[in-house]
Each structure stands twice: as structure tokens, then as C-alpha cells.
């Protein structure tokens, strides 16, 4: 643990819990107020207001069909809200959605390499990223041949490609096996410690373990 902190140049004496507001470079990454989206002239979910700052892990929870995926797509900027305000910080964000954006006809390495060229290049080599998400054994296979969990890992590899501070993850634990979950917990912990933040939609049974998080319960329909 301490190795990480030293490695990233943080002062051990001043080190605060990573979710503390006094965190160095504390920044608001996204803030929404009274946000909702209408479909068929009805709000999909009751208006939500929150903000996500450095070190935050926010869980968007609720029953099936309560608008978690919709909200996270609004946060990612794919959808425009019908009501309410949304403001983004300038630290970049990355979104791993329900649809994984993994091309069936490309190999794992080709998929990651394309996203690297498209999004920006990090200093981490593709081989190292493949290793970290646990796909080294299958890295030359086309994505079509992968299992659902392996495809998920391939999509999650995008998180390691950029220095985007805000991660938006839609059901990141689904389809992952035990090792996959531990792997995701590992990179998430490191991301939060490095001053990142994460919003995660999850229907409740699959939650990050050993993290402090805030929960935003979502309810479908119009405000009562």
C-alpha cells in the first residue's frame, strides 16, 4: 500500500483517507441536480441530485428498470437529460457500459490496441494491460471465442488505457468470476487512491467489497 503512495509522490505524513474532502487536489468531477429523463412523456426515474468528487465511490442502486443504466448513460453524455442540470469537471471520464464495445472480429490485443490509438496512449503497454486483466492466455484469440466474463475483462481493460479520473461503470461485476472481481477491486482501489472517482450502477447483489461508498437509491417513475 505504502509503495503506491510513495510511487505516486504523496506525502505520507499528510496522507488522508482517500475519500476525505481534505484530499490534495480535491475536485468535483460531476455534479447533477434534479436530473431526470422522460420517455414516452413520463419520467424514467425520480429526479436525482448528487455530485462526485475525488476519491468518491458512488453506487447507483435500485430495482430492475429503475433507470440505473439510463442515468449512467446521461452521466457519460450519451443521453441528454430532459430536466435538471449536469456539469462535468475537466478530468476526463471513461464509461464501460452494458454494451461492451468489444469487436467480435478482432483479437483481445487488437481490441485494446485500437482503443489505445483512439482514446489516447498510456505508458502501460498492451501486454501489461492484458496481463493485469488476466487475459494473457487468450490475447491472440478473436473476441468472438471468449466467454462472457472474458469479454467483460476485455472491456474493463479500457479503464487502464487513459488517465480519465471519472469512471462510469454499468454493472461491472456481472459475468465476472471470483478472480475477475478481485482484479476489478484491485484496479478500482488503485484508481480511487490515485485521486480518481467512480460511479457504478449495480442492482445490489454484486457490490464492491472492502470499499467505503455512498449509495444513491433510484426509484422509477415520477416524483411522488
Amino acid at each position, binding site marked *: 500500500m505504502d509503495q503506491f503512495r510513495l510511487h505516486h509522490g504523496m506525502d505520507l505524513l499528510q496522507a488522508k483517507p482517500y475519500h476525505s474532502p481534505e484530499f490534495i487536489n480535491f475536485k468535483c468531477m460531476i455534479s447533477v441536480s434534479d436530473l431526470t429523463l422522460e420517455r414516452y412523456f413520463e419520467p424514467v426515474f425520480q429526479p436525482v441530485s448528487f455530485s462526485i468528487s475525488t476519491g468518491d465511490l458512488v453506487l447507483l442502486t435500485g430495482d430492475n428498470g429503475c433507470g440505473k443504466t439510463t442515468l449512467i*448513460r446521461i452521466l*457519460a*453524455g*450519451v*443521453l*441528454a437529460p430532459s430536466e435538471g442540470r449536469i456539469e462535468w469537471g475537466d478530468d*476526463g*471520464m471513461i*464509461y464501460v*457500459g*452494458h*454494451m*461492451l*464495445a*468489444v*469487436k*467480435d*472480429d*478482432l483479437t483481445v490485443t*487488437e481490441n485494446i490496441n*485500437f*482503443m489505445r*490509438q*483512439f*482514446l*489516447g*496512449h*498510456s*505508458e502501460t503497454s498492451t501486454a501489461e494491460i492484458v496481463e493485469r486483466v488476466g487475459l494473457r492466455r487468450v490475447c491472440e484469440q478473436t473476441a468472438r471465442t471468449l466467454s462472457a466474463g472474458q469479454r467483460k475483462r476485455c472491456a474493463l481493460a479500457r479503464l487502464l*488505457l*487513459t*488517465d480519465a479520473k471519472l469512471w462510469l461503470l454499468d454493472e461491472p461485476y456481472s459475468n465476472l468470476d471470483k478472480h475477475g472481481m478481485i482484479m476489478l477491486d484491485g484496479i478500482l482501489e488503485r484508481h480511487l487512491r490515485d485521486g480518481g472517482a467512480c460511479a457504478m450502477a449495480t442492482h445490489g447483489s454484486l457490490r464492491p467489497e472492502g470499499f467505503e461508498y455512498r449509495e444513491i437509491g433510484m426509484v422509477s417513475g415520477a416524483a411522488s
Partner: protein
Amino acid sequence: MSHRTGASKAFLALVRRDLLLAFRRRSEMMQPLLFLLVVVSLFPLGVGPSPDLLGSIAPGVIWIAALLATVLSLDTLFRSDFEDGTLEQFAISGHPVTVIALAKIMVHWLVAGLPIVLLSPLLALWMNLPMDALDVLVITLLLGTPVLSLVGSIGGALTVSLKRGGQLLSLLVFPLYVPLLIIAANAVSAAVAGLPYSGQLGLMGAGLIAALTLAPFATAAALKLSLE
């Protein structure tokens, strides 16, 4: 620290990826071209093998077949990227969606439009088009097939989120192709008849420039709308 890529690098990365994908799915990419060959070969069977008749309808037949083959391939232009979530990643990547649309249109022309140009001498031979007019046919196809891809991409983007968008797509784009069909087929016919055709080619060039400047914006707007 990592760095954001510029739009031109993203453009090249996307072109390279789409060419690779087209190569991996080459049998699928061939289908519209086979369709083109089959459609043109049906005309002599339908109207009779008289060389004079075939020669006189050749410009129109070849151009209509090119239109049909292009529309057939347009449905797949954005569909796979839409369905696997790549398109929404593109839309939020910070790169202009117009640039992304332009890259995809360019690859579409390379794999669906350019082969039509390359096949056109064979089609001209089948349809008994006088060989003097072959160069004009090739030029009209070179100028016109990019317009087919550009204008058609608007239709492809508008129907990509629909389950059965393919049939609707042809209704949307064929009326928009009318001017191109008229002018291109007429240029070839004029060449056959020994009449001047440079005016038509000039109009087609102007059309290409207009489509190149306007269509990517419309396509980008339609793509963003389809993602909502």
C-alpha cells in the same frame, strides 16, 4: 501520464480498424458486389440479348445496379458498431462525431464503392456499352460512388437504431439519389451518342464537394440521435 489523441490520429485508427474488420468479414463484403453482377446479368435475360437495345439502356442499368448494391451495403455501415456499444464510446470519446462518420464513410466507399468502379468494365462489356464511353462510365462512377456513400450514410445513421431499418433505408435514400442517377446516366449516354458531357461531369464534381461538406454533419447528427 497518458495523452489525448488528436482527431486525425483517431480518424486513422478508425480507418485502419474498419479496413481490418472488412478484411475479416470479406465474404460478407463481397455480397453487394455479387448482387451487382447478378442484377446486371438479369437485364439481358429480361429484355432480350439485342446488342443495340442493351447498349442504349446500359448507362441507366449499370447506374441503377450500383445504386441498389450500395443501398444493400449501407445497412451494415453503422449497425455492428451501434449494437456492440462501440458507437456510444465514439460519441463520448471527445472526438467530433463528424470525423468518425467521415472515417466510416471513407471505408465504406473503399470496400463497397471502389469495387463497383473496378467491376464496371465487365458490366459495360455485358451490357454492350460502346467502348468509347467506358472511360466516361468509370469517371462518373468514380465521382458518383462517394456521393452514394456520403448521402446514404445519412439514411444508415437514421435507421441504425431500428430493428428492421434495412427496408426503410431504401425508401429514405433512393429519392435523394435521383439527381445523381439522372446526371450520371445522362453523361454516359451523351458520351455514347458522341455529345459533350463535360457539363454533367462538372455538376457531379460539384455534387461530390457539396455532399462531402454537408453529409458528414447530417450523419453525425443522426448518429447522436440514434444513440439516445
